[in-house]
């Protein structure tokens, strides 16, 4: 092992000892009642009519943190788009026109193709369901968005890059991503304009457990779902483009 590796591992061991020392000072597993978390859990149901306390924390009680997170995802997707652009000396070819045999993916088996294509529509529907019911039951915008983006990956898995670009063109993804992230801001600013404070819950709270309840929590959850689905689909597309479609120009 190199000297650098040895020093590094020694540092890891030292950090580990320090970390264990600190962790042993925590209250025992499952024995502590976290006051802040439990207060928020009660508040979610009693004052927001949201039956999913995690979503209530994400999209109402700590919504400002989630706005930062949505913008981090937005910035991450934008950065990947910048880094994986078509550089000088490269050309992008349409997948069917590519003559670079070695850069094509292996042909997909019929069974994989049939199952993957069959699963696309149910996956989109399931993702939308998870995102739309985030304030009521298990789920939320990020989870639903990730499931919808998986549908885009399924189309690629079926060996249809061209269809994938057609179904979810990057120009449209840019727009939906902006609607998701920008909509979050707009909801916050509307609340501010009504005097409730930034990202305050200004919509009617409805009846707990119903789809139309918990005020802005459901709205923000769907917007975040849109943002997450678009950002993750963009990431998938950029990497597919990079490995399958962009190649060095012939010298």
């Amino acid at each position, binding site marked *: 092992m190199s000297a650098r590796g040895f020093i590094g591992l020694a*540092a890891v061991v030292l950090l580990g000892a320090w970390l264990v020392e600190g*962790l042993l000072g925590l209250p025992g*597993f499952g*024995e502590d009642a976290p006051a802040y978390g439990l207060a928020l859990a009660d508040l979610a149901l009693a004052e927001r009519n949201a039956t999913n306390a995690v979503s209530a924390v994400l999209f109402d009680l700590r919504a400002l943190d989630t706005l930062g997170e949505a913008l981090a995802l937005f910035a991450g997707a934008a950065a990947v788009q910048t880094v994986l652009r078509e550089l000088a000396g490269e050309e992008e070819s349409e997948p069917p026109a590519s003559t670079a045999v070695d850069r094509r993916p292996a042909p997909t088996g019929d069974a994989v193709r049939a199952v993957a294509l069959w699963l696309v529509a149910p996956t989109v529907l399931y993702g939308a369901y998870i995102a739309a019911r985030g304030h009521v039951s298990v789920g939320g915008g990020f989870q639903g968005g990730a499931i919808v983006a998986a549908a885009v990956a399924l189309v690629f898995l079926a060996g249809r890059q061209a269809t994938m670009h057609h179904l979810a063109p990057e120009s449209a993804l840019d727009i939906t991503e902006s609607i998701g992230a920008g909509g979050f801001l707009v909801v916050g600013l509307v609340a501010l304009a009504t005097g409730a404070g930034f990202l305050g819950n200004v919509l009617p709270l409805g009846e707990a457990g119903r789809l139309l309840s918990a005020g802005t929590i459901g709205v923000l959850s769907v917007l975040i779902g849109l943002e997450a689905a678009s950002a993750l689909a963009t990431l998938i597309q950029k990497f597919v483009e990079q490995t399958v479609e962009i190649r060095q120009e012939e010298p």
Partner: protein
Amino acid sequence: MSAEHLPYLLAAWVLLTGLAGIVTSRDLVHTIMCLAVLQTSVHVLLLAIGYRHDATAPIYDDVPADVAVVDPVVQALTVTDIVVGAAATALLLAFAVQVNKRTGSLDPAGLVALRG
């Protein structure tokens, strides 16, 4: 050292495994995967801190409102971290793609000089 701290120690173990992998890594993709492993230790720790004995998930749609629940805040933090982690991993992999294109190698030890 006792059994009641075992989940915390598991988090420490996962973190150190990832860190040891990063320190000894000879391949940028391997480095990034080690970072992803390291990140899951944060999730293990957060969820372990929020856990309470005999409590259920903080979702009230099919349980009475007075039931004991685990801490929802750490679960929300975990969701946040997974999403930000996915974006960071994607960005790092994008850099790895470009490094490989320019230098023909993914060995971090080979990346010594700045190049325009």
